[in-house]
């Protein structure tokens, strides 16, 4: 298989499997497990297929252009080291899938679990075989995100949610730092390609930006590998299902941090800063984790802290400036993955079969689960570093390194002691795990009667434990070649001579091992009393709980600080916010004028025409009147706004913009009707002379607002005068004018612009209008009028009481009966208006008109029927009028026209035009833009009617609600809000 395909499949197959698993039915446990198992095994086979190339010292590569402009490629690169990790990810992955099939309960949504697990596998695989650092950072964050989903899998429990959030907060923040660090590193090297970075070791270490890059990258690696002081998220992540803990929190995810440290070790390690940060974090974590692990009562908690400790050990080894230490670290990564994954699985088995993981409640399981007990015995012994097991060999290497480490600080003198201490702690907690769970008297009061688990559930544990023994007895024959391969790819020719064997003769490390073993046993015996007591947590360090500090920091950041900032800088009140916007706009405008200056332009002002001046005298008065009356006289204000709108309309006509005038006029009518319909639901407000007179504060506030309004108005007036007296820039206009007919096929340039040149904008616009109409409709479906608006308004009641008594109120149409002449005229005018609309629509491409104004005319025609005829009468006769169908048709027509152009091999929304000769009518312009315009027309009709009708319907519903509410008279009290506040 070509290597490009192999690498690509290796990365993409898990993601494809994740999507497939996510699409399975909720309870398809077997199907999902088979799928996941097949994906993991295929991955393992692919990794194995890469072995010949890798073992010959070759590197598999695949590269695809991603953002070539930035020098970024999607590149995959598998050398020996990446190969080793890829094997770990797929191999342990396959075992975990098998285990999870039997661990997960039937009523859990198992396909979702496997979907996340597979996606995680893909992300992890991509991290280890990324050939590009930016890409690595991306997949790194993806693993954080997927680990969040997996920890929070049982999201109904608080522990899962909090653990997931904490893990994400810590590791994703670290990932962000890593990304920044990678960018700095890329800046130093001049490339983000791993090959280039690995070749530039000296340049990196000598660069002035080395320290920032180092700190940022270490932040990423140390948070991911849960090193002190970021260790606290890992124990809290134990709320995840046990297969997740076995996979993510022992074998893979947490190893990503140390993977990165080892990957960059040749180019970044060896400096004092590296030793100080990495070494110290590793040392502290190793001791702290091992110490706290002894006092954990939860089996998984014990394993979690033990994982911290072992990760600390690996980190410490990576911190030392020695190739041999690096070998020991990588070797221990493998060993730890084997024994810790099997122990996690065993803890899950115990939990599964007994119903508890509390060491104090468990006891004597050796008799009921003999086989499991022996497996755990071996795995825990490997964890403790007992000879003939894999943990022993890497521990011996660690001791040897601790003894011979050379670094500039005296701190190292205590390293052998610390190593022994950590090892003794590790013996103690391993003993506690075995002794507490499997020995002693028979357990009492367990939730379930313990028994051996199914064969298949035990199989993964057996395989892992066998590995531990195999590596422990014959290290050179089993893991030797793989380790050698990985080390050669990291260190090149500089691989030091090391010997993988059980017996190195009587030497100091062996003596240290014996002391640690004996010390651990003694410690465990000494602590018996304390461990059996009910006291939770460990002595001495209980106060220093990272979780509590984290939570306090979160509360401070996300709550207290946010509230305080909001109190200072923000308000929930609308008026100050709007005032601020206006002030900022004024200041911005003022600043520009102050810096650049402003004045009348080069054009002489045209003479004032008294007619338009008169129109605007009236229009301006209308605007001022509306401003003054909008509070107490809403109807009057609405009419005055209409007056101002008419003045605008006249201005458009005056200055040669017939299309605008037409649209403005029709929209004006519809807006007014809409606001009229809304008036009904607003509270009565009557101005009582003398009451609520402006207080001093209010008066000052009004003066301030007045100043702002005058400032804004004056500023805008000055600005427009300055603009109008300058020659307008000829940007697009000339182009549009020249091409409107020759290429757009229409003589009405504005319309051609809308449906052709800027057709995409119009398409976007009609989608917005459709969304707004549907939002309006949705909001009104849930509309509940205020109690004081429930009662029919006084006018309506008068009309109803005047209606003939024999007629039931529901069928009464007071308006139609009273206004018989307008009613008849409205009915007559309906077809005429429809004709006008059609006229406007079809001539729109050549003469003023078009879809917008035509649609508005139809909407006006219909709303007239509603106003005079009443809702019930109109809807009986206009049953074909379904606004939502119009909206849908319009959108489909408009986007369909655009897509049709694609069918002819042209870009989206390209239009075609020609003239059609029709009998009697003559030449009709038939551009494909016309179909687009018909779409616009249909949409405008539908959207406008949907809004108007939905609002008008509230009166009908309101009447029904009123008849219900009137039954309970207490709710019909009317509130007269006559407050004079402003």
């Amino acid at each position, binding site marked *: 298989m070509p290597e490009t395909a192999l690498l690509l499949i290796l990365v993409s197959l898990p993601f494809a499997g994740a999507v497939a698993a996510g699409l399975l039915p909720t309870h398809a446990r077997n199907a999902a497990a088979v799928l996941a198992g097949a994906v993991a095994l295929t991955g393992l086979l692919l990794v194995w297929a890469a072995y010949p190339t890798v073992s010959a010292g070759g590197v598999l590569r695949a590269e695809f252009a991603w953002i070539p402009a930035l020098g970024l490629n999607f590149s995959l690169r598998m050398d020996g080291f990446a190969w080793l990790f890829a094997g770990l990810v797929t191999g342990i992955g396959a075992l975990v899938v098998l285990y999870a099939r039997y661990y997960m309960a039937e009523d859990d949504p198992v396909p979702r679990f496997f979907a996340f697990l597979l996606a995680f596998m893909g992300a992890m695989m991509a991290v280890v075989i990324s050939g590009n650092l930016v890409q690595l950072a991306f997949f790194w964050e993806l693993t954080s995100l997927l680990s969040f989903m997996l920890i929070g899998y049982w999201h109904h429990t608080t522990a899962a949610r909090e653990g997931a959030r904490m893990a994400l907060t810590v590791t994703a923040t670290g990932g962000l730092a890593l990304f920044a660090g990678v960018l700095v590193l890329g800046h130093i090297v001049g490339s983000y390609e791993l090959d280039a970075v690995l070749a530039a070791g000296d340049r990196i270490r000598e660069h002035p930006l080395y320290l920032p890059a180092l700190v940022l990258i270490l932040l990423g690696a140390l948070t991911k590998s849960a090193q002190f002081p970021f260790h606290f998220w890992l124990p809290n992540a134990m709320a995840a299902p046990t297969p997740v803990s076995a996979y993510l929190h022992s074998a893979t995810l947490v190893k990503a941090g140390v993977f990165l440290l080892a990957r960059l070790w040749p180019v970044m390690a060896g400096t004092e800063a590296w030793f100080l940060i990495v070494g110290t974090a590793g040392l502290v974590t190793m001791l702290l984790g091992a110490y706290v692990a002894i006092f954990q009562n939860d089996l998984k908690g014990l394993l979690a802290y033990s994982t911290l400790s072992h990760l600390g050990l690996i980190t410490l080894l990576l911190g030392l400036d020695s190739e041999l230490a690096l070998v020991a670290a990588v070797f221990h990564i493998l060993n730890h993955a084997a024994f810790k994954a099997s122990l996690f699985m065993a803890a899950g088995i115990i939990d599964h079969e007994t119903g508890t993981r509390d060491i104090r409640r468990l006891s004597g399981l050796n008799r009921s689960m003999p086989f499991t007990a022996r497996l755990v015995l071996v795995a825990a012994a490997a964890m403790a570093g007992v000879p003939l097991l894999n943990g022993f060999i890497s521990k011996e290497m660690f001791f040897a390194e601790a003894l011979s480490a050379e670094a500039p600080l005296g701190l190292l003198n205590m390293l052998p002691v610390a190593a022994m201490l950590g090892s003794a702690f590790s013996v103690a907690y391993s003993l506690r795990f075995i002794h507490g769970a499997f020995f002693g008297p028979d357990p009492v009061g367990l939730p379930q009667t313990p028994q051996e688990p199914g064969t298949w559930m035990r199989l993964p544990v057996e395989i892992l434990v066998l590995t531990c023994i195999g590596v422990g007895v014959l290290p050179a024959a089993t893991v030797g070649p793989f380790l050698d391969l990985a080390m050669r790819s990291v260190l090149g020719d500089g691989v030091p001579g090391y010997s993988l064997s059980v017996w190195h003769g009587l030497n100091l490390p062996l003596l240290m091992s014996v002391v640690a073993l004996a010390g651990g046993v003694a410690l465990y015996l000494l602590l018996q009393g304390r461990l059996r007591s009910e006291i939770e947590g460990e002595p001495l360090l209980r106060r220093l709980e990272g979780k509590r500090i984290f939570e306090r920091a979160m509360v401070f950041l996300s709550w207290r600080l946010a509230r305080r900032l909001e109190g200072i800088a923000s308000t929930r009140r609308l008026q100050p916010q709007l005032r601020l916007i206006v002030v900022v706009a004024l200041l911005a405008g003022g600043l520009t004028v102050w810096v650049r200056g402003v004045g009348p332009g080069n054009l002489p002002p045209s003479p004032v025409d008294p007619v338009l001046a008169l129109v605007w005298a009236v229009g301006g008065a209308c605007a001022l009147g509306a401003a003054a009356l909008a509070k107490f006289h809403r109807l009057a204000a609405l009419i005055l706004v209409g007056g101002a709108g008419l003045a605008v309309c006249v201005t458009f006509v005056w200055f040669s913009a017939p299309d605008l005038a037409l649209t403005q006029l029709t*929209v004006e009518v519809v807006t007014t009707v809409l606001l009229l319909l*809304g008036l009904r639901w607003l509270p009565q407000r009557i101005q009582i002379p003398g009451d609520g007179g402006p207080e001093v504060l209010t008066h000052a506030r009004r003066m301030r607002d007045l100043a702002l309004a005058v400032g804004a108005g004056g500023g805008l007036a000055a600005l427009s005068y300055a603009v109008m007296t300058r020659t307008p820039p000829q940007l697009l206009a000339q182009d549009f004018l020249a091409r409107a007919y020759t290429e757009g096929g229409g003589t009405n340039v504005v319309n051609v612009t809308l449906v052709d040149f800027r057709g995409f904008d119009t398409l976007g616009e009609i989608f917005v209008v459709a969304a707004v109409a549907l939002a309006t409709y949705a909001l009104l479906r*849930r509309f509940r009028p205020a109690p004081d608006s429930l009662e029919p308004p006084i006018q309506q009641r008068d009309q109803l009481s005047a209606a003939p008594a024999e007629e039931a109120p529901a069928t009464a149409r007071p308006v139609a009966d009273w206004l018989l002449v307008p009613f008849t005229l409205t009915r007559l005018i309906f077809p005429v208006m429809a004709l006008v609309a059609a006229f406007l629509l079809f001539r729109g491409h050549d003469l003023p008109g078009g879809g917008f104004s035509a649609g508005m005319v139809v909407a006006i025609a219909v709303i007239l029927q509603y106003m005079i005829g009443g809702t019930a009468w109109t809807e009986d006769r206009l049953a074909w009028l379904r606004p939502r169908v119009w909206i849908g048709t319009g959108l489909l027509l408009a986007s369909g026209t655009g897509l049709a152009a694609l069918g002819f091999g042209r870009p989206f929304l390209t239009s075609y035009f020609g003239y059609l000769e029709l009998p009697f009518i003559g030449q009709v312009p038939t551009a494909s833009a016309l179909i687009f315009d018909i779409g616009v027309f249909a949409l405008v009709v539908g959207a406008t009617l949907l809004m108007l009708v939905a609002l008008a319907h509230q009166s009908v519903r309101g009447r029904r609600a009123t008849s219900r509410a009137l039954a309970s008279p207490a709710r019909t009290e009317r509130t007269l809000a006559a407050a004079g506040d402003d």
Partner: protein
Amino acid sequence: MELVVSLAIGVLAGSGVWLLLRPRTFQVTIGLALLSYAVNLFIFSTGGLRTGADAILGRGEVGTLAEFTDPVPQALVLTAIVIGFATTALLLVVLLAARGLTGTDHVDGRERER
């Protein structure tokens, strides 16, 4: 003529801003309507005020700015008018719904404490 139109824009904008800062929802709605008139007129005026210029090309004609009005601001304003209508409708309905839920037509959903 430029003076008249710019004064008109100023008066519309001033009234609009004044109403925008008032506490009652209906005042804000009316204020937005007035403000949008002002802004539409302003955008329109950037193409220059032309009386008696042609807006419609002849068949087969290649137009020039010397004889025709600038179509770009007009197209912009036409779109703005329609969108303005849609947003006014949405604002009105949101305000009505808020009034139904809170029982007051104050913009903050509750009366100001005195």
